[in-house]
């Protein structure tokens, strides 16, 4: 490997860090400059993420191993902090960077003027997310979680106003408690296993003394609760919908991926630690994930049906997608995980798109205009008139908005022909096939929950869509500028791309799932600090 390729792994953390820091130095009035730096950084991250994706996909033809290990300060992995690039982290960094560009572009129309230091916070948010996805060390994961959360507190409160402060207060307190649980879990793990390196921990799992194993599992379970709070599992996720639905649009779009960070951490750690059939801890807590996921789907579906508000509908669909993913992880089969990853990518993009759409659709209604006016007043932006809106308005607004909304509804409900359906299908097909003649009970439950939640989403989106597009009076056509609708278009186009190129994408997801379910290769690579030149003798572990 040449020199720069080695350092590409840390670039998604360094680039937003530098960009965010530089922007603090400039006065708040120089928004154009800040926007320029922020946009450059966000675009650079997309490019970096694509490079990482290619690296991750190309480096290991045997689909067993981590692609690249970055040792900070060149300390051996046992002592220093490592960043690990594999298919999963590359995928998540890519999704983050896409959301970053889209949300930032959207914010340039008006939202970035609604409060101080928006651009810096936004970059730190991206940095925290990228770091959390790339790190290979539990304590480092905690640090990046905090970076990400601290930035998200700022973004969730961006624009100020009563509703945001009220929801933000709950959001911050709950996440602080989650962070404390995270710390308790981490310290128990360190006390028992003597390591915080995820790969080292995976290796040591097998040799934990019998008397200590229960304590270690308790520690990991406490850690898991912290992740589940982030993922919004019922009954830990009541904070999610109120917070996300009142956050300013661009912020909501980017922090909507935060719940997937919880899912990511669970997927990574759970499969790393508990997927070895030889270990006594094999499959620890899988029932909890499955049942909790199913309950979350039910709760999310009921929330979707119960709400009249588009933003709350988007928030509730995060719950449904979290629940689906948790239940799919809990099943613990390679093919199901592959499908879940496909579903994850599709739902991240679709949920971000619908969060962006919400404001555009609501703008035509009196309610949305009210909120914006109040925000402006609170921040003292008297000069901010409709005329100074950036960008050109698009023609045929209602038609474009309606089409985008319909696409989002199809994606969220998981109906053909878009990628939401493919994701659900990719999860369910292997699940039903796996049992041979008799389909196992958990497969039936998951099937039922997925179909029912899709149905609930369909009813709710149809109802809201009719209300917003058909029942609204013709004189209330909102003014939507190009840079507001373009991000939605990009996100939906990516979903469309995933649908058309489902074969290659699914191939990547399956390779990801296979390497996740065979963590020995990952552990060995991280500990030796070198991606294995050739496939080692890591044994194939099949699901139960």
């Amino acid at each position, binding site marked *: 490997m040449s020199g720069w390729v080695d350092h590409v792994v840390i670039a998604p953390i360094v680039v937003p860090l530098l960009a965010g820091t530089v922007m603090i130095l400039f006065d708040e009035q120089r928004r154009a400059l800040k926007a320029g730096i922020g946009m450059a950084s966000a675009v650079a991250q997309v490019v970096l993420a694509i490079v990482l994706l290619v690296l991750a996909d190309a480096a290991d033809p045997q689909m067993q191993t981590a692609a690249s290990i970055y040792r900070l300060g060149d300390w051996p992995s046992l002592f220093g902090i490592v960043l690990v690039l594999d298919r999963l982290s590359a995928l998540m960094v890519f999704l983050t960077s896409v959301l970053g560009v889209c949300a930032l572009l959207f914010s340039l129309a008006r939202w970035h003027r609604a409060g101080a230091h928006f651009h810096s916070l936004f970059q730190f948010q991206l940095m925290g997310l990228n770091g959390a996805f790339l790190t290979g060390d539990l304590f480092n994961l905690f640090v990046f979680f*905090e970076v990400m959360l601290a930035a998200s507190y700022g973004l969730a409160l961006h624009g100020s106003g*009563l509703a945001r402060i009220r929801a*933000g207060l709950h959001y911050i307190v709950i996440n602080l408690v989650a962070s404390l649980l995270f710390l308790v879990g981490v310290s128990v793990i*360190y006390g028992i296993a003597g390591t915080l390196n995820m790969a080292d921990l995976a290796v040591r799992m097998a040799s934990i003394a019998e008397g200590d194993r229960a304590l270690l599992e308790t520690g990991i379970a406490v850690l898991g609760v912290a992740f589940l709070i982030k993922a919004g599992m019922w009954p830990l996720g009541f904070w999610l919908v109120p917070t996300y639905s009142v956050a300013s649009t661009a912020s909501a779009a980017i922090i909507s991926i935060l719940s997937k960070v919880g899912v990511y951490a669970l997927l990574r750690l759970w499969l790393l630690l508990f997927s070895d059939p030889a270990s006594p801890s094999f499959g620890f807590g899988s029932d909890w994930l499955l049942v909790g996921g199913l309950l979350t789907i039910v709760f999310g579906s009921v929330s979707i049906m119960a709400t009249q508000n588009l933003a709350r509908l988007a928030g509730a669909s995060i719950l449904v997608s979290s629940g689906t993913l948790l239940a799919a992880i809990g099943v613990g089969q390679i093919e199901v995980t592959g499908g879940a990853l496909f579903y994850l990518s599709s739902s991240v993009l679709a949920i971000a798109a619908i969060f962006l759409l919400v404001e555009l659709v609501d703008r035509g209604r009196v309610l949305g205009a009210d909120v914006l006016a109040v925000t402006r007043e609170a921040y003292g932006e008297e000069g901010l008139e409709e005329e100074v809106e950036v960008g050109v308005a698009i023609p045929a607004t209602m038609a474009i908005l309606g089409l985008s909304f319909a696409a989002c509804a199809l994606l969220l409900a998981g109906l053909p022909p878009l990628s939401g359906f493919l994701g659900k299908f990719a999860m369910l097909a292997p699940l039903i096939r796996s049992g041979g003649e008799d389909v196992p009970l958990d497969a039936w439950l998951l099937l039922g929950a997925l179909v029912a939640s899709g149905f609930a989403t369909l009813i709710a989106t149809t109802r809201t869509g009719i209300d917003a597009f058909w029942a609204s009076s013709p004189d209330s056509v909102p003014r939507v500028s190009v840079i507001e609708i373009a991000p939605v278009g990009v996100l939906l186009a990516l979903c469309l791309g995933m649908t058309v190129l489902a074969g290659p994408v699914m191939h990547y997801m399956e390779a990801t799932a296979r390497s996740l379910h065979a963590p020995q290769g990952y552990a060995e690579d991280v500990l030796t600090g070198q991606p294995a030149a050739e496939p080692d003798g890591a044994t194939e572990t099949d699901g139960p």
Partner: protein
Amino acid sequence: MELVVSIGIGVLTGAGIWLLLRPRTFQVIIGLSLLSYAVNLFIFSTGGLRSGAAPVLEPGTAGSLEQHADPLPQALVLTAIVIGFATTALLLVVLLAARGLTGSDHVDGKEADR
């Protein structure tokens, strides 16, 4: 030593949780602080408790893990203290904003119906 530390952690945690569940924002923030003290002590204690030991090395002897506590949890606790301090400060600002905007120090922004 172990008993004193564990009772201390337990008392701090209990008081913290009780305060966290109270309706006033100020009580919540004090509860969170107490909880974070408890957690910090807990992390610190995972490195092993020892009194009267040399910080790193005794003069003239080769160091071994028998002689001193594990330094890594101490590094972790430092990080956790800094992060906890920063987030608590942030929460204080939000608390003041909530107090100013809602005119109430109830966590929901309005008094519960009695």
